[in-house]
């Protein structure tokens, strides 16, 4: 702790501005992340389906989109699908990864993109053109995550 305080003291105002800029950018880009995800089956029963974001605001889902999602999977799968789906942007700019818990996300993404995808290490990797296609179909049910890994 002493060392970190020393480092802090040694920082010039210029460095502090840059550090603040980095923190600010990370805070801004990840402000829309949900505090917790909700299951599709729960969201379908809500009058105004939404989740609370990190910044305290609400992320509202479109009912039509939820119904479209529900039409793609079975009822028991609806109880296991967490929403919004998180799209992680990694160090490689040409790729994105969808963070998934199980096979349901795999099934949904496969159907939406009309191609088979596989989940490896809890991530489904897709390319940017596929990401655009996915976002067109799931505008409110997907959210971007800017992982700290990309700045490491």
């Amino acid at each position, binding site marked *: 702790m002493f060392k970190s305080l020393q480092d802090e003291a*040694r920082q*010039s105002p*210029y*460095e502090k501005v*840059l*550090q603040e*800029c*980095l923190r600010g*950018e*990370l805070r*801004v*880009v*990840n*402000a*829309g992340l949900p505090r917790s995800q909700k299951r599709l089956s729960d969201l379908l029963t809500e009058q*105004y389906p*939404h989740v609370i*974001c990190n910044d305290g*605001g*609400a*992320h*509202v889902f*479109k*009912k*039509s989109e939820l119904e479209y999602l529900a039409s793609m999977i079975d009822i028991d799968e609806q109880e296991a699908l967490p929403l919004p789906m998180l799209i992680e*942007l990694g160090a490689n*700019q040409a790729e994105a990864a969808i963070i998934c818990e199980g096979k349901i996300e795999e099934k949904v993404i496969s159907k939406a993109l009309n191609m088979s995808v596989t989940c490896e290490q809890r991530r489904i990797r897709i390319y*940017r053109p596929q*990401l*655009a296609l996915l*976002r*067109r179909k799931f*505008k*409110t049910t997907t*959210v*971007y995550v*800017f992982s700290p890994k*990309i*700045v490491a």
Partner: protein
Amino acid sequence: MPEIIKVRPTKIELIRLKRRLSMAQRVQKIVKDRLSILTMEFLETARDTVEAKRKLVDELSKLYKAISIAGGYHGYIAMEKELIATEADLKVTAGLRNIAGVRIPSFELIGNLPAEAWQAGGKPMRGYNLLDTSSWLDRAAQLSEECLKAIVELAELQRSFELLAKEINRTKRISNALEYTVIPGLQVTINYLNMKFEERDREEKARLKRVKVLVARG
């Protein structure tokens, strides 16, 4: 041409500059990533907006035609009398969603007809007398509902389009400042300091050689 930052030529300053450079590069990475996502979303929104506008214009032209035909068939006064009963409040769900730090509005038109207004066959009862009116009026009513949906969709897209464009401008300015001013400035200063230290080393070596010669003579 980037300017050299005025710093004391010391090793500590060089370390600080290197730290600043790595920080600036990290910020630039995030900003660039964000910019690419925003641009992708912007292009998508622009495409959707154009499509929605075209759709709305088509729907409206169809609607005007249908209304004039219905008006011609029933007479405008009789049609207005029938339509007074159909007035209903428009229900739109409005919320926000976040795209890479930009809060975008999200509108969705909720069916403004109560559930019991739907017949068993799936056709809605719009409130006017079906016996006294023709299918032309049904057609006009159906088209007007589609127009409402298209207007709400266009409103969302148009606003998203504007907000994304503003944010892209802002992010681009930050990205350009980092790319063309901050980072090159730091790199030039680091190079300058490195050269200065090398020069000092060379001078030191030359001085030592000279001292060595002098000591050997003495």
